[in-house]
């Protein structure tokens, strides 16, 4: 069984404790989980429905007239959660940056516009580093395992920034091939 990112995310939230749909929405919002998954409010119930059909979560309507559906994890759901979490952690999945395509077509640009574009990327990376830092400060308290997750993203961005700086320096000093 292979879950999508949204399915795995919601399965994990329901595994923490039984939750209502609107409560899941609230958690997604407060923990900033929309940073990594495209999951709108309307699709929460759709994804939960799929998990229910697969026998991974149980939807119950508690007694009472205005009671809302509560979703809780099944033992099969727990098994799948552990399995998928381990595979997410241990298997590297390549993600392709737009930078690769941009770099491939570097010679199509004029010297000035190529260097200016890379310089623009430097600004947007710097802005992203600052945005993450702000989020981190606003989202306290954060447990240690989330704190290190932010460390991971920050170090990836810092590595890219180092690369851009070095590459700009290198490309600025190279002669530009004249187009025939």
């Amino acid at each position, binding site marked *: 069984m292979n879950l999508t990112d949204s399915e795995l995310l919601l399965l994990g939230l329901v595994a*923490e*404790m039984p939750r209502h749909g609107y409560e899941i929405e609230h958690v997604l919002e407060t923990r900033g989980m929309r940073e990594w998954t495209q999951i709108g409010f309307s699709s929460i119930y759709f994804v939960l429905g799929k998990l229910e059909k697969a026998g991974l979560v149980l939807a119950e309507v508690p007694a009472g007239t205005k009671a809302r559906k509560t979703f809780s994890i099944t033992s099969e759901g727990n098994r799948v959660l552990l399995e998928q979490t381990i595979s997410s952690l241990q298997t590297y999945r390549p993600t392709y940056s737009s930078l690769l395509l941009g770099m491939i077509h570097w010679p199509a640009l004029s010297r000035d516009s190529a260097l200016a574009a890379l310089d623009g990327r430097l600004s947007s990376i710097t802005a992203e580093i600052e945005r993450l830092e702000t989020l981190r400060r*606003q989202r*306290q308290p954060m*447990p240690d395992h989330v*704190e290190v997750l932010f460390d991971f993203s920050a170090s990836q961005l810092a590595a890219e920034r180092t690369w851009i700086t070095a590459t700009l320096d290198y490309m600025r000093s190279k002669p530009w091939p004249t187009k025939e």
Partner: protein
Amino acid sequence: MADEGMIDLIRDRAMLHTLYAPPAGAFSIVDVPRLPFAVWDGEGPPEQSSISTAIRNLYTAIYPIRREARERMGKSFVEPPVELLYWADDMREFSTGHRENWRWRAQITLPVWVNAKRLEESAAEMRQELRLAPTLRWEALAEGKCVQSLHVGQTDDLPVILERLYSEYLPQEGLEPSGPYHEIYLDDWSRVSPIKRKIILRQPVRTRPT
């Protein structure tokens, strides 16, 4: 910079264990040393919304300290839990669970190398993220002799345990309360199911005069 005579819980793991991992489901006696805290004084009765705000603000205010602690201590860093002290002007209000007449404060224990000035700097650095002007202060608290117990599960069971503590256990042992009642929350309630939540109940005591 460390306050003389303050126990470093990071170095003294046995003490950390004694204070923050007592036996579950039974009362035990413990001697709590002087420890440094970031304290947020509560206003009004202990309601979930004001307590949540206080806890968020406390953690926000100490964030720079926590980051420094992670850097300085590396692998020996332990996430500090949030603690609440409750008291009533009339201590009889206590075992009855009439929380509307209780007073409270939230606190988080700090590394020994943090003093009042460092806490103030830390909160100043987080000014923009704090929802309220911080009613924050540094305090060293020494509770001394205490009875404590670890409770795992719903908070609905607490009044019964407290009733047992104040009406049975303390009189039997010839003890009486000598300070605010103390709860330590070992889990983040937004991530842990109510039936699995671990709470340490602690009551400072003294020998009852005969």
